[in-house]
């Protein structure tokens, strides 16, 4: 088994596996759970407790660690071109560099804005009602920001190899 196969074959495969889990769960939260929880809260009595207790914590566990796995495998794929991509040192690495920056901002949002605030919302750490309300808004906007950023991020990740065929000419 050659190093090239491990690097670009297995590496890309694992990067995409983690990425599907991360963005798949992000879309589950934004396209399904937010709306479902709103409707559940309006039920009499409210019916969303099972989602908060059993679904959200597990989904958040895979979500945040898949984000780490995606980023680490992305960095592994860039290898010695990591700095060229992030610092836009070579024109050929501009598209993947933009994708990498978007992914990095999204990883930051997951660990610095979404997860600490979700811990307050789900009761893993103590928080007053006012703190929970604020945490809900911050986590929601960070999650929506990531959904927005995922659209160009996936474009640049999936199209960066095509730059030399005229797509970016």
């Amino acid at each position, binding site marked *: 088994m050659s190093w090239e196969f491990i690097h670009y074959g297995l590496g890309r495969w694992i990067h995409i596996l983690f990425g599907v889990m991360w963005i798949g769960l992000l879309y589950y939260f*934004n*396209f399904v759970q937010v*709306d479902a929880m709103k409707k559940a809260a309006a039920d009499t009595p409210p019916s969303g407790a099972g989602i908060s207790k059993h679904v959200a914590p597990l989904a958040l566990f895979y979500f945040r660690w898949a984000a780490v796995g995606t980023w680490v495998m992305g960095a592994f794929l860039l290898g010695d071109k990591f700095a060229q991509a992030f610092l*836009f040192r070579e*024109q*050929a690495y*501009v*598209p993947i560099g*933009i994708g990498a920056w978007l992914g990095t901002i999204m990883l930051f949002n997951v660990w610095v804005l979404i997860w600490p605030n979700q811990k307050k919302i789900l009761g893993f750490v103590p928080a007053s009602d006012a703190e929970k309300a604020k945490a809900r808004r911050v986590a929601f*906007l960070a999650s*929506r*920001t990531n*959904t*927005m*950023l*995922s*659209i*160009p991020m996936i*474009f*640049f990740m999936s199209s960066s190899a095509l*730059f030399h065929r005229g797509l*970016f*000419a």
Partner: protein
Amino acid sequence: MKNPLDSLWGTVISGLVLTVVLYYLARAMMGGSP
């Protein structure tokens, strides 16, 4: 003004607009015609 991220469609449209903006930025950074 309402935050576009409060609605799912606002979020998706913002993402598509950002994609177009970044696409032209990438082209310009790569020395292509804007």
